[in-house]
């Protein structure tokens, strides 16, 4: 039977999965929890014309227009995080005290141009 067509990832700007494991960066000895978390990252194009779902700023719209006129001199707008959310981390500090700290802007929820 014919193989199902491969899923081609969307080239448009959007959040991509990124799991950060604290053991990968050697922080597992002092971070108690979580052991890792889904942080995500932004990647993709912000092409002309900018669609509404790309969360584009007015600046990005104008930069896209200028880019279409002068591709060499002006780059396309960047795909960046536009909404992030916090996580809490439990860890031991340098004096062996247990600390619970809330960190803002740790998880990428939405990307935009």
């Amino acid at each position: 039977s014919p193989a199902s067509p491969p899923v081609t990832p969307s080239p448009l700007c959007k959040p991509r999965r990124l799991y950060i494991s604290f053991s990968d960066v050697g922080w597992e000895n002092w971070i108690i929890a979580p052991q890792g978390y889904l942080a995500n990252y932004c990647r993709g194009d912000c092409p002309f014309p900018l669609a509404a779902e790309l969360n584009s700023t007015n600046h990005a719209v104008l930069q896209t227009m200028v880019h279409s006129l002068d591709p060499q001199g002006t780059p396309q707008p960047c795909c960046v995080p536009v909404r992030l959310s916090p996580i809490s981390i439990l860890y031991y500090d340098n004096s062996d005290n247990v600390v619970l700290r809330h960190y803002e802007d740790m998880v990428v929820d939405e990307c935009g141009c």
Partner: protein
Amino acid sequence: LSWQESSLLKSLGLSAKPSPKRPVPVPPVLWRIFQRRKELPRPHQELDSCRVEEFHVPGNIVRVFADQGRFLPEEQPQGWLCLRKLLFFNLSVLEEGERLTMAQLELRFQHNSYHSPRPGQVLELRLYPANPRGQPQPGRSPLVERSFVQLHKSLLFKLSAALKDGKMPGRNLTLVLEISASSGASGSPRSLCAGSDALEAASLLVVTLGRQCRAPRSRR
């Protein structure tokens, strides 16, 4: 990588990478707050990360300090004194610019009472501000003074108001804990104070507002 790591740790509010030497069990209260936050649906629309809802106070850092004090010799004549202990909390890890919004002392005992209460018998607990040698500061009244018929397994005392009054000397908190039987009680002091080693542990929970949260928020 080392300077990159140092820079990352600094932005997370740590001066150096911690390497726990004698890691203590995680206090249940911190686990509860952590789990509650973890179970919130993402994205956290309603969550203010600069507020600790569990205690109804502003803050983004919750620390639990273990007591590093020692038992103090009983001074004579204080026949009804059951327990005298120095409570010492090293708060030097608090960063410059952190604002304390809550402090709560927890005393945990091995059992629910020193002994079976007798009619008319009352236990009195006092906490005095002290110097690091364990001597109560002269002329200072107790921070906390409470009477009990029976001691519970765990006692909580809010010290926030006292610490905000500037009674926290330097980068540590030193207190003297005294538990005594009321002088009107019948029986010998020794029998009334049986089990004076019943204090299992003391800890200080501190909520602070870090610099990130103290910066003025941009207008929308």
